[in-house]
């Protein structure tokens, strides 16, 4: 049973990790928490459903196309909702409030256009799970786990070895100096939002496959946000470790104590970690965190 608990915990944690990465990316460069990320994940789940179920594309192409579309949606989101605020150098609190507004608008837009029905992705595997040492692992868990790993490696390579990646990192450490050196800050931000949109799309498709699609599904990103904070907002490895830790702790609490108090534990853990490590486990010093 312990092995099964750990496996389930890792599976849940990998979804948190995937979602937390989108928060991290935006936070690391703009220093604000993009609460519209949950709504982007929800849109990703709907777009993926469109490709996979209605148009009938394969899992692989649905994932790729959804990622590109949510990437573009994320750029539009930044252009319409955040850029003006940013150019007027509004405090990041206002950006956060705007992000919450965007998330409510998107959720209600889906309610009013698509409706509140539940949708379920088609079955892609002939078997949904495999057995290892008498514990069962969902195939979708294995997929999401490896996709998270691949994403993080690609992101790492991009940030460290491409010109744009280096420019983004320069922008993270000092936006003004980076601009003076000729990096176009607006382009940097556009690319960061594109990347975070890609992660939202991937997370959305996996969420849809594992559970279902409905307008309020974005709420689960609250957990991903906690994961990002535990790991240290703005730190990508932190987001992954934080997600996995949260998934495992939640599962252990559910199995050995009670699932009713599960959230009490995960939120207490958040407070506890912040008491001892105010920047999270892998946090980097930034001026203000919200």
């Amino acid at each position: 049973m312990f092995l099964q608990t750990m496996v389930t915990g890792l599976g849940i944690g990998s979804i948190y990790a995937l979602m937390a990465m989108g928060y991290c990316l935006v936070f690391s460069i703009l220093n604000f928490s993009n609460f519209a990320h949950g709504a982007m994940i929800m849109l990703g789940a709907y777009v993926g459903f469109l490709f996979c179920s209605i148009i009938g594309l394969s899992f692989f192409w649905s994932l790729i196309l959804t990622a590109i579309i949510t990437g573009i949606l994320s750029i539009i989101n930044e252009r319409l909702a955040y850029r003006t605020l940013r150019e007027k150098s509004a405090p990041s609190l206002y950006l956060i409030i705007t992000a919450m507004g965007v998330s409510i608008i998107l959720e209600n837009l889906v309610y009013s256009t698509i409706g509140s029905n539940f949708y379920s992705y088609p079955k892609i595997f002939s078997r949904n799970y495999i057995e290892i040492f008498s514990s069962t692992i969902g195939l979708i868990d294995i997929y999401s786990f490896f996709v998270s790993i691949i994403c993080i490696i690609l992101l790492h390579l991009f940030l460290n070895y491409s010109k744009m990646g280096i420019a983004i990192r320069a922008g993270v450490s000092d936006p003004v100096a980076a601009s003076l050196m000729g990096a176009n800050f607006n382009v940097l931000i556009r690319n960061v939002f594109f990347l975070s949109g890609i992660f939202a799309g991937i997370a959305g498709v996996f969420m849809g496959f594992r559970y279902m699609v409905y307008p309020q599904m974005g709420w689960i990103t609250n957990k991903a946000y906690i994961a990002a904070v535990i790991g240290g907002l703005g730190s990508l490895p932190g987001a992954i470790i934080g997600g996995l830790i949260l998934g495992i702790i939640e599962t252990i609490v559910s199995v050995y104590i009670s699932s009713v108090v599960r959230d009490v534990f995960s939120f207490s853990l958040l407070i506890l970690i912040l008491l001892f490590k105010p920047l999270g486990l892998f946090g980097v010093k930034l001026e203000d965190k919200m």
Partner: protein
Amino acid sequence: MFKKIIITVLCLMLFYSFALAQEDTIKIGANVSLTGASSMWGISELNALKMAAEQINQDGGVLGKKIVIIEYDNRANPPEAVIVNQRLIDRDHVAAIIGLAQSGTFIAARTVAEEGKTPQIGTTATNPMATVAEDGKPFKYAFRVCFIDPFQGKIAANFAYNELKAKTASIVYDVGSDYSSWLADYFIENFTALGGKIVNEEAFRSGELDFRAILGKIKASPVDILYVPTMQKEAGLIAKQARDLGITAPFMGGDGVASPDLMTIGGEATEGFYFTNLADLADPLLSEWLEDYRAIYNTDPVLPNPVMAVDALLLVVDAIKRAGTTDGETLASAIENTKNIQVLTTDNFTIDPQTHNPLDKPAVINVVKDGKFEYVMSYSGEN
């Protein structure tokens, strides 16, 4: 300034003449969920109410007046349900309110109906505390037309123990829902009284998506049946995740899962999912009504809410005829003294004055077969 006053006066006059013109109608409020997770039933419920009102009006109306249904959406959310009740009573001055469909929303909105002296007829609010106060006396204005959860839990336990020959059971319920946690208790009480054994009793909080942690625990000690008294969304996900984990026990639920959503969400995993329900489309009493419904709306109603709502409307109409007035207090006593009237689901509908529940309402057992609900058997009210 003068202009503004004129406009205001004109508006008021217009409003008044409108109100006067409406005097030859009897307004019945419908507190239904038209959006959100319960909208499937709510929309069917409203359709059925409008159809029934139309029929009553064609037959000459009530006390020479026409019935008008006034509906507002409550999203199955208790605070919204309270606001809808306030609006129906204070602004629309309805004679009675039909709804609510959930025990939690009914209990929340009940106070408003009591204060506004307006009878409220719950359609599928099955929790015993919905109509009866802690001291055992019924609330004056709270009624319902459905059976109550102790009965539903008892039938589920009986069916599981006697028909499915289950000797051990585990339960997964929603601790954030009155309906779910009480129904779990009634099942446990009756199942253990019959000689069955409850192995695991696991709870989750409303809105949960991932049940694999608790299902992993349930898998470790296999049982004959898994009782899931939740709503359709959770039941569908639980079925899917349980089968993925390799749990093979059959599932059983309450009337909360009776929506095609169950199969949409759970897919193949819901095959053989048993549940207790208030009504079934296969019931011969409903055949004529069902034909009419299909003819008007081109779709099947999502049971049981629409037939319960029609029962509620017929109950109110009968009481208004007997009372000869729509005055709330007189109407409430007339409803309380309803005996042996004909409604949609039974020819012999009686309200118990002690509890404001219907006496001897039948129940059915349904099962999911080939992606559709199938009728298994009926339990009469005395069981």
